[in-house]
């Protein structure tokens, strides 16, 4: 639990808001909210997670069990920063395999050395 404690100082704290019209207050509210989420959305734009990577493989036609195993093995090899879907698609293109066959080959232990580092 936090140690932040203080009495209700609303009357003094609100002084700078008192002159605002309702519309101005509303605008201020939303501009603060947008500012607050901007760094969060920037992090999301530039990062990924195992769940996102599994969700990409699901969309590429793998089952949840296959997606989980592929992402775990890619994560062990620190490959997820390239995107699980990209690794599978580019492998499929290089080997002229279907996307599914490329993924199943990885699950069978093949081609790992050919993936980007």
């Amino acid at each position, binding site marked *: *639990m*936090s*140690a*932040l*404690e*203080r*009495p*209700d100082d*609303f009357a003094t*704290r*609100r002084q700078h*808001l008192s002159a605002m019209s*309702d519309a101005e*207050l*509303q605008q*201020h*509210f*939303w501009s*603060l*909210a*947008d*500012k*607050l*989420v*901007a*760094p*969060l959305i920037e*992090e*999301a*734009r*530039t*990062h*990924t*997670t*195992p*769940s*996102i990577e*599994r*969700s*990409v493989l*699901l*969309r*590429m*036609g793998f*089952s*949840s069990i*296959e997606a*989980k195993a592929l992402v775990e093995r890619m994560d062990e090899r620190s490959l*997820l*920063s*390239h*995107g699980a*879907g*990209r690794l599978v*698609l*580019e492998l*499929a*293109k290089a080997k002229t395999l*279907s996307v599914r066959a490329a993924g199943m080959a990885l699950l069978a232990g093949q081609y790992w050395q050919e993936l*980007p580092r």
Partner: protein
Amino acid sequence: MKLSANEKLDLREVLRDLEHYRPKRKGWSWRRKLTNHRLGPFVYRNASEDLKKSIPLPAAQAFGDIDPQADCVITTEIASGRFEDDLRRMRMAAWHGADHIMVIRTTGQSHIDGLIEGTPEGVGGVPITRKQLRATRKTLDAIENEVGRPINLHSYVSGLAGAEIAVLFAEEGVNGAHQDPQYNVLYRDINMHRSFVDAAEAKKILADAGILQLDGAHNANATAKQAWKVTPELFVQHAINTAYSRAVGMAREQIALSTVPPTAPPAPKLRLDLPYAVALRELFNGYVFRAQQNTRYAETDTTEATITHVLDTLISRLTSADIQSTITPDEGRNIPWHYNNVAGVNTARQTLMGLDGIMEMIELKKDGPLREQVRELKERAVLFLEEILASGGYYNAVAAGQFVDSGYFPERRGDGIDRSPAGGDRAGTVIKRAPDYGAPVCSHFGDNVYRDSEHKVCGAYGGCTLCDPAKIQYIDELDPEDNVETRLAKPLADRAAGILHPEVEKHGDNFVCVTIFVPTSPDFAEYAALQIAEKMNLKNAQVISRRVLHPAEGSVFEVRGMLDVAIEIDEIPLAARPEPLTDTEIEAWARPRDIHVVAATVGEDEHSVGIREILDIKHGGIEKYGFHCHFIGTSVALERLLDEALAVGAHVILISTIVTHADVHKQHMRRLAELARRRGVRARFLLIAGGTQITDDIARQCGMDAGFGRGTKGRDVASFILRKLRTQEKS
């Protein structure tokens, strides 16, 4: 799959060929609103299209069984632990007007880092899996055909597998979902970086699939020590999820705010909750409002809970609600039972229709305490946002314990939930995307080397599952024991053998609930109530609600227990009464014969609505067939009734007896038969009794020729008269 009103849901059919089932439609559906909807004797202002099949509110029998539907979607939350039992409950709820079915997840699913498959049994909810969703959507597709209105299926995109669950929902035709990363952070202690990064992907998928998103702010309400003091924070939580969703690209009309009036009586509920509701609708104008009912102060008394829920729904009408969610009245004492889902839906339906058009006549004041409090709430929320930014942003504010503090912001009491940005479940699992990062699928958020391609990013391999559902990999079951097939063995065997068990939640649970008043002090009374239940053969009896009526005079208890019985359907006698005759047949026989019917409400009883419905032509009563009806009045003495019948040469005497205190209805019937006999005129008349507590058996036992109960129509009575008199005529 097609449903028939007189047949139970065929669970075998539901499970058949699920591998190839595809949902009939995707995305959220609203009701079709009607602003001047004529139905029976009324015109409704806030209505929507009628249902093809439904069960009206009980009082509708006085208005020609009309079943007006409100303009907003009505939600019920269902979860018994076994989805196959929930499907039957969904059908019952839909027949009472629910069109948003929210399926609660099993305890702990948030912390499973991946999808669950198959149909294992859940605790406090069901494991959300592809098979469970597909079977549920298939059933709802059939139910929506049956009732004639789209039904929205809804569950939760939270926890560690949010992005995958969002894909699953988009693929399987789920229509609504909770998605709010703050829920993970505050209540599930899942790492905050992980929660927000996952959430962006999940939101993008929901947005593209047309799935309506609900946020999670209502949870602060349910968690806060004093729920009305957390209101400034609720605006902040709504704003964070809303702004984040917009930044991902979700449309306004897909973003729903989950809002609960925070208090319950004896708190001055409307004075506290109304300014909050108004301020919220102003600040978030243009978004969707899902009005939830209060759970924070729900105790075990279902009447008390219902009254709070009526007041919650009143606030919805005084402000606005696109979705009126319902809480079952028994939520304060157990996982909801079947009939309490229906009770909750009916609370909303009854209240909304009762308040139809109210805002044409009243308005909320534009000055005074309401406006002052609305302004103050908005300012407190703004100050909260300012402080979050001043402290370095959202993560720092959570770390400082700013959220779910019991102080009324800016007051702080130091008892908020604090989470470390570096801690929580799966901390350290967020990975920076390399410059060559790629995700060749639709509905992907963020930097992606494939994004700038001219064609669909999934075109390189013939389309992703969102474009080509044939690519979806369906897994049926993983656990040979814990699955629906195993669980269905007993219910299906019971059904085949025609065996019935009492049930509140799951097939064959054998639970019943009895109300027992015990006239002594509470300590003794509770023990006595349990003893009484035991003597009634209830096993594992448990008091689930208690209310002291007076410390010495007595208490009332509701006691739940298991009654280990099975009834065979074949042993139940078929209803003895034949089908009514056709209108044409009745009129053809009755009109030429000038048959007189004398009718009255007897005893000290002023009810006349029921008997009027049986007699009057304007209500479809027997007058329309050409019977000459003489209604003598209410509270009529039996002697006078008999005199009048003799005077007009009546063939039939109809009595209505509604009051049943001390079995007075039975006395009236016996006395009328006896009186007619003593005067030697019994054979001249058909004696017929009607009333809410009358059955044919009771009436015959009391010397009548027939008895008619609730739901009787003029045609039923006319058919009886005709058959009886026709037989007499022939002999």
